[in-house]
């Protein structure tokens, strides 16, 4: 997303209010969101809870990228053979990871998704436009 910003920052700076984006800012607020973009697969109960909290606070939730949309490559451990599973067992236990890695839609309802690794910037802009359009229609 920070790369799509190269061409769109001027427009986004006016149009969007980034409420919670740790990669961009330190003072983040997770209150009422219009749109939440979620990247990454879900590997622990804590992450599951955080995702549920985001869902509660956002009107729309968009899963972005293969990790969020299909859970891969983090979910490759779901398909390990018995020996590989034994090798990683103690680490899964040490950090209280879930027995299987989940995709975002396994945990919450997803309103839209931008699949792919990397995600396709044009597709991202299309989805962003559509979701923003819905808010503008509601306002009008």
């Amino acid at each position, binding site marked *: 997303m920070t790369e799509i910003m190269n061409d769109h*920052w001027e427009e986004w700076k006016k149009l969007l209010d980034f409420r919670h984006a740790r990669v961009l800012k330190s003072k983040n607020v997770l209150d009422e969101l219009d749109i939440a973009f979620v990247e990454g697969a879900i590997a622990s109960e804590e992450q599951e809870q955080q995702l549920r909290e985001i869902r509660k606070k956002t009107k729309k939730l968009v899963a972005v990228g293969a990790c969020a949309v299909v859970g891969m*490559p983090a979910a490759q451990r779901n398909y390990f053979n018995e020996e590989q599973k034994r090798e990683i067992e103690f*680490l899964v236990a040490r950090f209280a990871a879930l027995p299987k890695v989940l995709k975002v839609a396994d945990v919450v309802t997803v309103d839209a998704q931008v699949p792919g690794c990397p995600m396709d910037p044009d597709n991202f802009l299309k989805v962003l436009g559509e979701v923003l359009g819905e808010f503008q229609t509601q306002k009008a």
Partner: protein
Amino acid sequence: MHNFDLTLDRLTKVEGSASLEVRVRDGRVEHVHFKITEYKRFFTQAMQGKPPVALPQLLSRICGTCSNAHLLCSIESCERALGISPSEQSKILKALTMYGLMIRDHALHLYLFALPDLFDKDSFLEFDETDPVQRQLLHDGFAIKAAGNFLAKLIAGRSVHAPYPTVGGFTHVPEKEGIREAIQKLNDVRPAVLRLAKIFEEAPFRFDRKTNFMALVSEGDRYGFLEGCINTGQGECIPEQYYREHLEQVVLPYSQASAYRHEGGAYMVGALSRMNLAKDKLHPRTKDSLGATLDHFPSTNVFHNNLAQAIEILHSIDDTLDILSSRTFVQEPPIKKEPHEAVGIGVIEAPRGTLYHKIEVGRDGLVKRGEIVVPTGQNQINIEEDIRGLVEELLPETPKEKIIFEIEKLIRAYDPCMSCAAHFLKVDWLQQ
């Protein structure tokens, strides 16, 4: 304030998730735990049973930011295992791929992560467009990133998980029109890079501590990121294939990532190490434009890592302009070889420091085992030792909030990447 615990649940303006715990007892730092909290994705297990040619595109997924560094390092390890010597042209295309990555990745770190601290802003996007200096910086930052992106796209097909570089060569070569456009864009942003270097040269932030600086340094006369031997900063230059004897893996139970030492001590990798060890090999035009700025190196000031990154952007632009304006490229079929029982080691300088990929191919031509050592894992202990030193400098007068802010600034100067650091499981590698 003799006894206190200081915790930071989530660092911001860094790649991926990390937290920090500092314990102070009787006015002294008892421990510093820099915890990488990304969950492991077990790439070293996932490598097993795959043919070598399938690895680079899998392993580039370790990181979305420096994916092309993992891609090239994996290609190198596979080429070594298969006995492939890349053509002269492939080597140049790899160098250009790295330059595109360095320009984009360093600019991302400097403008979006580091610059807000210097301007007392929470975010780069909060820079004031009515202020001429800040407005210029906003434009500069996104223009440099875009130019790096354009170069990566032209040479490698994409700036993230690039499709053209493959085991044995490149599937596409850049076309004339694109080369012309890249030259134009890079020339256009060059003055912006000089402005950036000036800002970080004049930045008032400073933290000094003696440590060891390590980097892959070219044996030729040009500063690069792909070839050379591993300079330990102590007068030794280790050939790539012996790297493992010189890195001691340390398991920190509170972190998802492995840490490393060299001869029992912490060391630092990244732009500052490269600049400290090889500034003489920078492009002549870079040296000429920067003049006395280069006299800051060698430096033990961790914040000079930012200045070194800005200088590397300039060098990447200058060497790319040289190559693109003097060379033509012809389509070459990638070199193919049948896999056999072998070990392949790839070592490159990723934006954040030395990156190692090792694969062991079995008799069946499939990968038996692999190992990946990333820069942030190597910097982990050095970061912790720096934080300890910083907190002891700030005690007892400084308020806790200010200490936390200063620590975060220091960690940010390293440009750590948590996604890279937490990807694999400790491997007990039998010495070959």
